[in-house]
């Protein structure tokens, strides 16, 4: 009977189609489950082999080691800098001087897989839980923001790239101090849009955009880009097109931001919430 009647066969086809389509859409909705599958397991070895083979072609071999040295040095310097900043804020008391920990520390990592040609781009790096990376940590490079850690396995981390239409970074324009969310609109990997800046604020073309430091993900004052063009939305807001300093195509080394005050801050927020 099954397969003979054309109506039943058509019905079976439609049911199969709908089932598979619903399964696909469920997959899309629950992507975070698969991110974990993608970075754990044997496939990563195969994958990291392939992608390093293809991307190594673009790099000179001698520059590689030099880069590594520079990365480590940069990291050390950045940690020292944030330590000194914190010390300066604490003033001259000896107590404060001894007990200070830097606000942010950095874990250097190498990109294994990266894409810039989709609307939802992801990055995989070669550092994971073993190295102290946790979910929801920010990732930066010397030239700007890279993304947010989305899931972690023992040796690898899956990062939602800034080049993802669902991502935004809290940004600040330098001389005027105005701030707003910087989002990527999916057009070009070189440009992003700074939205919702109040109309009365005066900004000139070429002003530099930095991270605001309002979120716990990224340290403040990471340079992001320069303003290139502005447009007025509904007569009340400026939208600025920002040329990013970051070139995501040639991005190779990144630093994962560890916010040492995160737990304290979360606890503080929770306490205040409880009081209310």
């Amino acid at each position, binding site marked *: 009977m099954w397969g003979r009647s054309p109506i039943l066969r058509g019905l*079976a*086809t439609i049911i199969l189609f709908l089932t598979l389509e619903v399964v*696909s*859409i469920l997959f*899309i909705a629950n992507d975070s489950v698969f991110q974990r599958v993608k970075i754990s397991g044997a496939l990563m070895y195969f994958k990291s082999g392939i992608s390093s083979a293809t991307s190594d072609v673009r790099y000179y071999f001698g520059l590689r080691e030099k880069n590594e040295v520079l990365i480590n040095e940069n990291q050390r310097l950045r940690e020292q800098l944030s330590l000194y900043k914190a010390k300066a804020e604490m003033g001259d008391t000896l107590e404060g001087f001894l007990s200070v920990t830097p606000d942010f520390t950095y874990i250097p990592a190498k990109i294994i897989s990266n894409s810039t040609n989709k609307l*939802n781009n992801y990055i995989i790096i070669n550092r994971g839980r073993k190295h102290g990376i946790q979910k929801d940590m920010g990732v930066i490079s010397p030239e700007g923001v890279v993304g947010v850690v989305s899931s972690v396995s023992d040796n690898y981390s899956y990062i939602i790239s800034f080049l993802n239409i669902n991502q935004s970074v809290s940004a600040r324009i330098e001389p005027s101090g105005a701030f707003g969310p910087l989002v990527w609109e999916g057009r070009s990997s070189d440009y992003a849009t700074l939205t919702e800046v109040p109309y009365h604020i005066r900004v000139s073309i070429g002003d530099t955009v930095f991270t605001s430091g309002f979120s716990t993900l990224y340290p403040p004052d990471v340079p992001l880009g320069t303003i290139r063009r502005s447009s007025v939305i509904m007569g009340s807001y400026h939208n600025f097109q920002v040329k990013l300093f970051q070139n995501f*195509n040639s991005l190779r080394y990144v630093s994962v931001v560890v916010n040492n005050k995160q737990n304290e801050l979360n606890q503080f927020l929770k306490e205040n919430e409880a009081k209310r």
Partner: protein
Amino acid sequence: MKLRGNILISFVTLLLVQIMLSGLVDFGPLLFIAVYPLFIFTLPINTPVNRLLLWAFAMGLAVDYFTNSIMGLNSSASLVMALLQPQIFKAVSRKGDLENQIRPGLAQLGYAKFALYALILLTIHHIFFSMAESLGFTHFIYNLPRLFVSIAVNTLLIMLVEYSLFYKLMR
């Protein structure tokens, strides 16, 4: 049995071509590479639609997994394409073509017909792909340039891949 072997070979070949091209070709987000639909176009006519759907689903998921995109994105688009493939083929081909169990490729259809066939199915695929990507119609107008560029480039790429890999073998 021989036919099924051929299907497997073209499955693996196109998966590899897709992985390599989407890894190497990068013109920014305005262009997404989709060559794997060629596999679904060229599944033999007379393949039951159910089997077509399963192949399309498998191909879509494999591409999603290996090219590091959101799981389910390519599979949902290629399912719609697979469902409509027999109808489009009927519309494009001559009557006699349907009776043989042929692979609807460049050698069998000829340049003009194959290009038309590929173009129509790719358009369907790309529309559903971009809908699944932004989950709805909201970005549809905004995505139009991306859609046009991708359809044009992918049609060309598919013609090239079909010509270079399968045309001579099948003739």
